[in-house]
């Protein structure tokens, strides 16, 4: 058994280790979590989606189906339309043409967005910032308890009475995540939520995102410019070019994924070549 395999085992279910099973088989089932376990997420179908700002056509016909509970990453160069696509999915902007339909009837609380900036209310305590995420349930009797459990989920329960201004950038983003999760959304749209964080904080946030997605089984759509983040977290990576989906890549790598492992690195390299052209992932030295 290689070092890498033993690390994977340590993350796996204790019961799985006790029973003598085919090791490759154990990893394979883990990788296909959405089909194994019933997902709370919503499926999403997009047809002929276009969006123009004035004469500038940002999205030029996007067709896409996302199964319930899938983790999709959207990558692409700046200005390719990836954030626009996310804003349309989240219902923040109206499309110029085309349709977006979810598998079932949705409430506003079912779809939540997280931005690059935490967008916390500086004049509200951490806890009441999380309560904002309950939407129309804000006034219900258990609002505080639900907000507290969401804060605990992101590991910031002890900061509940603090002002946001005393938190670090990563902590603020965790509060924003708690706010997005407190209504138990079925779709979480993430617009470069980790883009402004330092490298180490970003890695621990990625782990947190991966964990809550795994536990709460929502459909997750992550816009990022960081290809290694995309392959570390997602089931599927979409590369957007000139307002269209240029590549649709399945990330068929077992979870929990080992940061820096050869298969992740190889996939990252091939996506970067797709993005930037052949030889572009070389450092240029």
């Amino acid at each position: 058994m290689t070092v890498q395999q033993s690390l994977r085992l340590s993350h796996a279910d204790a019961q799985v280790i006790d029973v003598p099973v085919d090791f490759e088989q154990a990893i394979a089932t883990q990788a296909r979590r959405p089909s194994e376990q019933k997902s709370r997420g919503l499926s999403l179908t997009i047809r002929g989606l276009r969006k123009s700002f004035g004469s500038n056509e940002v999205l030029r016909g996007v067709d896409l189906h996302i199964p319930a509970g899938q983790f999709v990453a959207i990558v692409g160069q700046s200005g390719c339309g990836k954030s626009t696509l996310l804003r349309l999915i989240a219902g923040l902007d109206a499309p110029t043409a085309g349709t977006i339909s979810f598998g079932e009837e949705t409430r506003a609380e079912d779809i939540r967005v997280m931005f690059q900036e935490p967008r916390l209310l500086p004049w509200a305590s951490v806890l009441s910032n999380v309560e904002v995420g309950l939407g129309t349930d804000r006034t219900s009797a258990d609002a505080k308890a639900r907000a507290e459990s969401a804060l605990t989920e992101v590991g910031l329960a002890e900061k509940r009475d603090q002002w946001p201004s005393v938190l670090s950038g990563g902590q603020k983003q965790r509060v924003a995540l708690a706010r997005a999760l407190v209504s138990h959304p079925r779709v979480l749209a993430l617009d470069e939520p980790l883009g402004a964080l330092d490298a180490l904080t970003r890695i621990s946030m990625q782990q947190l995102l991966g964990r809550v997605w795994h536990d709460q089984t929502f459909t997750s759509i992550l816009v990022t410019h960081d290809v290694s983040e995309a392959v570390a977290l997602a089931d599927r990576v979409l590369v957007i070019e000139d307002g269209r989906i240029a590549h649709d890549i399945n990330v068929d790598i077992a979870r929990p994924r080992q940061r820096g492992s050869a298969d992740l690195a190889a996939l990252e390299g091939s996506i970067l070549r797709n993005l930037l052209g052949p030889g572009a992932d070389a450092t240029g030295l």
Partner: protein
Amino acid sequence: MSIVEILPRVRSFRLPRIDGLTQWIVPLVILLVWQAACVTGYVPARVMPAPTDVALAGWKLLISGELAQNIWVSFWRASVGFLIGGSIGFAFGLANGLSQLSSKLTDTTLQMVRNVPHLALIPLVILWFGIDESAKLFLVALGVFFPIYLNTLHGIRTVDPQLIEMGRIYGMSNSELFRRVIFPGALPSIFVGVRFALGIMWLTLIVAETIAASSGLGYMAMQAREFMQIDVVVLSILIYALLGKVADSASRGLERLTLSWHPAFQKH
């Protein structure tokens, strides 16, 4: 904010007991120098009475009840005028900050009126109202209106649009959005307006009472000038300074209470 608060290393040497008194050191020194200059005859009593003489004049007026009466009249005019002008300014600031239509309708007009010095209206105001209470209230309200209007408007317009979008995404109704996002966001700017307005409030009142009044601190000072009671004149000026300080402290206290989330008001 003093330099002491900026330098954390220096701050750790600050003696907390002296902290509240530090601000009074300079006024006290001025008072002592002033007293010394008068006692030694360096400054003639006709030009400037000694602080002790001013205190004595104050005591006499206090005994006769005249002082309390005049302070009360001035205080009443100041606060009622402030409330009237401040509320109207706040209302216009809200309306024009929240509604494009309202802003298009009234902002240009208000900006034109703003550029007329309100004290220049005194002759007109005397013709309109005579020298009774409404004249003073009108002037104070007019003076207070603009700083509160402008700063409320500015505060509302500069609320982070990303926070407003966030509020909408999380399903806030218009009134909830106002209560939870727009008003708290505008509050620091509104307080700047309030403090400007307090300064203008006293200025307007002093001028109005000096020119056209039959009671109040300004009137008391003008009466004293008629009778060459220079100690009473100086006393009135000192009381204005003190009242201005009280008003400013009150607004600061209110600021600290409502803006405790703001990094500038956090205790370290």
